[in-house]
């Protein structure tokens, strides 16, 4: 590196130092400083990146934020949270489900600080709120598209880990598909990993080879979109807008938008109305959204989606309404009953009629 190129760098460092000094000088004791801890990498599409977009949304509102990414969901999160607390951060967003037991330890030791995690809540404290979205509602809408677009009546689904929220998404997707196409089957493959791009891609390829002409996913990587699209099938993504990975074959996908929930937490701390426990966003507040629809999606389906989205958001349409059978023929939601929100979803351990596949590890 030549001297002329070094000089601007040095100048920037000095400026940054001056800016830091200035910000310390005006720091207010009650100022909110929000720290974010992520399990995955920032900058590539997926779960973590959407959370970081939420952080940036707060930063744009003027909240002071910082983040650390790629923190394993084990005791490693403790020193990170402690360091943030030591640096004066008073709201810790520990954005991985597996951080909860460790966050709880620190929340009890720091009752005057606030902690935000990922629901469902397994390690509560009076200063912890856990957030999630009713992702399944978004999956139902993408199911409507998949059911319309399939010609072979075989739709693939690449799923990560067999936990209730994933299972609920598969079931909601299937109910969406069958609402417009009762003959369609959903072939389900598990990768048993949140992030394993080659395995996810290969799972999509094998689903296409088995006759699927639409492949949906609950995975963190664009692997299934790439695997499906490169073999001529339509793709439905998850977590982030994945249009750029297959502009022609990407139909749409659920997209996380944490901005409304994050803003709500910060506002509740500011006006002293913070409530511990769990908070679920959804289609109503935009926490769960759909990526822009492919132009191949017919206008009639677009209208149906807009209609259903508005109805679900307003609580006027319930696709979980009984009678529902699982794929073994057993009635799981009786006539006149339904699935009442996240509490029921948290125990979902069956696959709805229409899914070809099973839940591994028999839980």
């Amino acid at each position: 590196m030549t001297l002329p190129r070094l000089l601007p760098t040095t100048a920037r460092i000095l400026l940054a130092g001056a800016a830091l000094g200035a910000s310390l000088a005006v720091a207010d004791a009650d100022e909110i400083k929000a720290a974010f801890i992520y399990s995955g990498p920032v900058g590539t599409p997926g779960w973590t990146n959407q959370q970081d977009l939420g952080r940036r949304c707060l930063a744009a509102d003027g909240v002071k934020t910082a983040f650390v990414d790629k923190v394993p969901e084990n005791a490693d999160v403790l020193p990170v949270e402690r360091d943030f607390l030591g640096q004066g951060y008073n709201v810790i967003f520990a954005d991985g489900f597996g951080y909860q037991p460790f966050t709880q330890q620190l929340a009890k030791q720091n009752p005057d600080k606030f902690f935000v995690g990922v629901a469902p809540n397994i390690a509560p404290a009076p200063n912890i709120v856990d957030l999630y979205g009713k992702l399944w509602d978004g999956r139902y809408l993408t199911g409507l598209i998949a059911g319309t677009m399939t010609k072979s009546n075989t739709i693939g689904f690449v799923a990560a880990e067999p936990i209730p929220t994933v299972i609920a998404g598969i079931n909601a997707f299937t109910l969406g598909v069958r609402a417009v196409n009762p003959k369609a089957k959903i072939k389900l493959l598990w990768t048993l990993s949140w992030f394993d791009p080659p395995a996810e891609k290969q799972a999509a390829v094998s689903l296409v080879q088995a006759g699927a002409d639409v492949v949906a996913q609950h995975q963190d990587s664009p692997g299934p979109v790439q695997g499906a699209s490169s073999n001529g099938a339509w793709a439905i993504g998850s977590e982030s807008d994945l249009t750029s990975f297959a502009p022609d074959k990407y139909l749409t996908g659920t997209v996380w938008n944490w901005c409304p929930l994050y803003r709500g937490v910060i506002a509740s701390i500011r006006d002293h109305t913070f409530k511990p426990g769990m908070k679920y966003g959804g289609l109503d507040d935009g926490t769960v959204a759909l990526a822009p629809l492919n132009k191949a999606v017919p206008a009639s389906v677009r209208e149906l989606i807009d209609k259903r989205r508005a109805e679900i958001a307003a609580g006027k349409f319930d696709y979980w309404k009984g009678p529902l059978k699982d794929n073994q023929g057993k009635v799981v939601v009786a006539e006149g009953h339904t699935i009442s929100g996240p509490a029921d979803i948290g125990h979902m351990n069956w696959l709805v009629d229409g899914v070809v596949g099973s839940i591994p590890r028999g839980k």
Partner: protein
Amino acid sequence: MTTPSRAESALRVVIGTIATFVIGALLLVLTGHNPVFAFAAMFRGAFGSIVAFASTVDKAVPIGLCAIGISLAYRGGLWNIGAEGQFYFGAFAAAGFGLSLPENVPHALGIAGVVACGLAGGAAWAAIAAAAKVWLRVNEVLSTLMLNYVAILWVDYLVSGPWADPVTFSFPYSPELPDAARLPAPIAGIDLGAVITLLAAAALYAVDRGMRWGYELRVAGDAPRAAAYGGIRASAVTASALVAAGALAGLAGAIEVAGTTGRLQSGLSPGYGFIGILVAWLARSSPLGIIAGSVVYAGLLNGGFSLQVSGVPSAIGTVLQAVLLVCILTTFSLGRYRLRFGAAVGEAP
């Protein structure tokens, strides 16, 4: 090659550390970060306060125990690449004991059981590789490495199946261990693991200095045929060292579940068994060096997170760890050579 004196070793570590700072500072400047801020942030995260120091010690414990075991096996000429798996198997055994404890068990009994099960679990896992070595002449590098994956997957299976906590919504956790099976953390949040690690280092020192078994182990490792001539059963002695190494790694796993996480979970270790190999090398297998090396390495890991807290990308922290490793190993390697000035090329010595 002669073993460097303590002063020489210290000098090389100092030179290596200075080189790390210089190269690290250069990297930081090149990427547009202020090296003074960055190093200060790392130091803050690693040793900057009592809680930070306690976090670092907690992390140094598993690294140190694994490294002591690896060094012990290396005394006998064996490469234990399996500390990670032995860690998991020790954690499994300790958690199994803790989870099956009846109520109202005395705390001392609970802790003794957890420690004993950790030792036994790690030893049992290493014994597979040791037995294969003795009777089937299976290379221990391969067998210990492969057994890592088996142990990790075994724990994954348990915590997402038979031992899964029913209230964690299928997140791979076991239920919490009862209080009787938890290690107390008497001083500033530093648990008993720190004391156990120091004892293990002292034991390694004793093996080197006083014990007959240590002498036999070194002879068996350096010159198996001479050992046989001297009446030492080389394969049995080295195999016992591998089993002891496994016991120490298993103990580290037990301390992790009983002291830090309080339960068995998947992803329990961020690679302590592999970091232990690095530290054993950095420390050149000396007990004191391992203690120092594991604290420094744990500090680098914790400090690396603090770099990010201060806005420096995580990759820089990883690069600094690698730079330290390369610099220290380089100074030790180059320390074997003597620079001579003035002698012409090709001149007879």
